[in-house]
């Protein structure tokens, strides 16, 4: 009796270990669950006052999700980039560049571009959003062409782009602080019932679309093929340059969407500092979610989990009152531990 029980236990443990090593999605889901349980306890779960506990729990969660929606969307694009075997360091700078353009367009002060042309309100917003997304697409595609046609390593190409975009934005926006019309803030702050859920909805919808793209479309699967074995993909008739460029174009579009959410959530932008560190946060989320830096492996769901792990961890550190400067150290620790636990490529 004892014997069989021991065997069962061992085999469950073995099963668990196998799944843990074989499936990054499994391990990240479990880690996420553990962190959420910890967070629940920290928030003072108590049976008697379950009502008030639940409302503070819910508010806390909505805050977490809303604050991380922008970077969450960028990390989804980063997942595609990393799976394809690349990296994009320029996302933060691309974001301020796009933010600056959008804000100049919709500015309702004396210098506002569209306002001076007599376009205000919803039409102005639509034009600004279309141009912003178009700019993101253009900048991303430019980086992609630099990488594929110019044969510059992605790290270098995007490092260059990062410096260029940031510097140009800062230079041209010196002493100019556009005011964002209050109506524009509705994009992110529109209330459903009592809650401001819009950023969360955008994130969820985009995550679902990208999940579908990665699983079902030719582009999504070709990204994996290119990242896993570029030569074999090329010899299978895959247009490797087009796929790689496409990944950076997609990244650009996602950065634009994240930027629109960010601008409308806060209503202003610090062109010197906004978006700095986005690239590392996005890479961290993808890696914690099981994306392999050498390409070929990674999932959209994993990155969502990865982003949540980092976000909830941050929230916990906040609740515990850990000093802000120390929090980054914990973030770094999570990333390193996540990769330590993941399946390693056999040498």
């Amino acid at each position: 009796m004892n014997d069989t029980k021991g065997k069962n236990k061992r085999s469950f443990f073995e099963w668990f270990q196998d799944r843990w090593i074989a499936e990054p999605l499994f391990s990240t889901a479990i880690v996420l669950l553990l962190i959420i349980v910890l967070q629940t306890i920290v928030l003072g779960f108590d049976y008697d006052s379950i009502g008030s506990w639940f409302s503070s729990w819910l508010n806390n969660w909505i805050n977490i999700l809303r604050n991380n929606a922008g970077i969450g969307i960028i990390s989804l694009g980063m997942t595609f980039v990393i799976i394809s075997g690349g990296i994009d360091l320029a996302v933060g700078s691309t974001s301020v560049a796009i933010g600056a353009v959008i804000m100049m367009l919709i500015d309702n002060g004396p210098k506002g571009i569209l306002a001076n042309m007599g376009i205000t309100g919803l039409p102005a917003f639509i034009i600004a959003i279309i141009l912003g997304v178009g700019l993101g697409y253009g900048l991303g595609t430019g980086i992609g062409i630099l990488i594929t046609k110019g044969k510059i390593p992605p790290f270098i190409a995007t490092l260059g782009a990062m410096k260029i975009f940031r510097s140009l934005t800062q230079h041209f926006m010196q002493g100019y602080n556009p005011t964002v019309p209050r109506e524009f803030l509705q994009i992110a702050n529109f209330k459903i019932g009592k809650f401001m859920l819009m950023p969360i909805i955008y994130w969820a919808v985009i995550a679902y679309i990208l999940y579908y793209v990665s699983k079902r479309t030719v582009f999504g699967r070709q990204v994996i093929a290119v990242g896993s074995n570029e030569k074999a993909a090329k010899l299978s008739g895959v247009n490797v340059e087009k796929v790689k460029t496409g990944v950076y174009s997609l990244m650009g579009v996602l950065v634009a969407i994240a930027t629109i959410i960010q601008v409308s959530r806060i209503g202003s932008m610090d062109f010197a500092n906004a978006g700095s560190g986005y690239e590392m946060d996005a890479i961290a989320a993808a890696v914690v979610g099981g994306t392999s830096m050498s390409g070929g492996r990674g999932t959209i769901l994993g990155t969502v989990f990865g982003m949540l792990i980092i976000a909830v961890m941050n929230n916990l550190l906040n609740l515990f009152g850990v000093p802000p400067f120390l929090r980054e150290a914990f973030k770094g620790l999570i990333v390193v531990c996540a990769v330590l636990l993941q399946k390693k490529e056999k040498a």
Partner: protein
Amino acid sequence: MIVEMKNIIKSFGSNKVLKDVSLKLKGGEICALIGENGAGKSTLMNILGGVCKMDSGAIYLDGKKVDFDTPAQSLNAGIAFIHQELNLINDLPVYENMFLGRELKNKRGRLDLERMIYETEEVFKQMNVDLDPKIMVRDLDASYKQIVEICRAMMMNASIIIMDEPTTSLTEPEIKRVFSMMRMLKERGVGIIFISHKLNEVMEICERYIVLRDGCLVAEGNVSEVTTDDLARFMVGYDVRTERLSRDKNLGNEVLRLEKLTHETAYRDISLSVRAGEILGVTGLLGDGRSELFQSVFGAESILSGKIFLEREEIRINSTTQALDKGIGYLPRNRKENGIIKDMNILENASIVTWPLFAKRGVIDWIRHRKIFKKQVKELRIKMGKSTDSIDSLSGGNQQKVVLAKWLSANPKLLILDNPTQGVDVGAKEDIYDIILNLAKENIAVVVLSSEAQEVVRICDRALVMYHGVIQGEVSKETMNEHDIMRLATGGKLD
């Protein structure tokens, strides 16, 4: 020094690579080790060089039994192995390469550059090599890289040097330079084992030969007593092991014609044509340029000049995607690097080529792919578990069939198969031959690139033999034999 290898047996898995091989080499002689690809030459030398361990057998140096677990041990015993892909670091100067792994240091633990340079100069002087030790290895031509490797071996007092196809990437004058160096070593009492595919060179430089075939030593003796024809015959063997495969031949119109196609380095002036329903073999030895030639046809390699005609129309192909659109398929050599994508499952690997062809608005039609693959599993006799299993779960032969399947569903007009039976077991090999014959019956023009002369004789209607980037000769079904192919492939001519 005298090296003796006795009764060496070695297998990789169930594959017996060496079946009881013995050989002997004296100092001061150059001995050729020849054989077809896969005959066991490299494995035998890897055992002598301490790169891999034998299953049974013994090695004696001057009558004393030795055991090599690592290349370093073998080197210390005086055996230097110069690999085909040279072990030099391009970004370091010559003298640092000479002392790689055994750098000289001064008393304070810093690199003693002056002494390393001085000692390198001394060795070069001894060997009559005119070379500046401070030059970067990157700036050396291929023959001087060989020479630096040889000098390094000499500096370590090697008395036996193994050279694995040292001349494949060299030009004529460079080969002369390496040969004169080898003659000088011989005079100094160094024994050299010269692995080569080029029989003319064997005749020129070696005095003894050893021929391996299928892991057995089949012939040895003095080079002066044989001709290149004899050597070619030894390599292939008298007995044709299996019969030629025949089929009802029904040749259609011309599908592919090349006119004076020339590549930057790999091949030049290639003209040929293939008709629908025909199986054209293209064969040769390492470095003959056939892979590059047909990768150019497939858009994976650039061309310098010349014309490609597909169904009598001149085409320009700049990418593999275009080739696919035009109905050209290419099964690459080296399945692991070029064929399979290990992060994708069996079904994905079997369908990647046709994703864009069958997709509706960019969405992959998995139902259709699954249906096609199910049929292919039966037709190609693929042995596997679930179609969503990892591609790594299949044996080599079945992996190759999956890679083949991805091209078959694209219905190509022209299918190029580069080493289609590489690393495939005997049963799967016969299956793949059947598949190739069936393709020809379905009026596809098939080009089989192969390094196995026997394979070409068995399945091809006619074959072109390439040698150093040019077509050395053509043989056709009725008169085709392995002997002629080997003679052409080693640079000879047919009478």
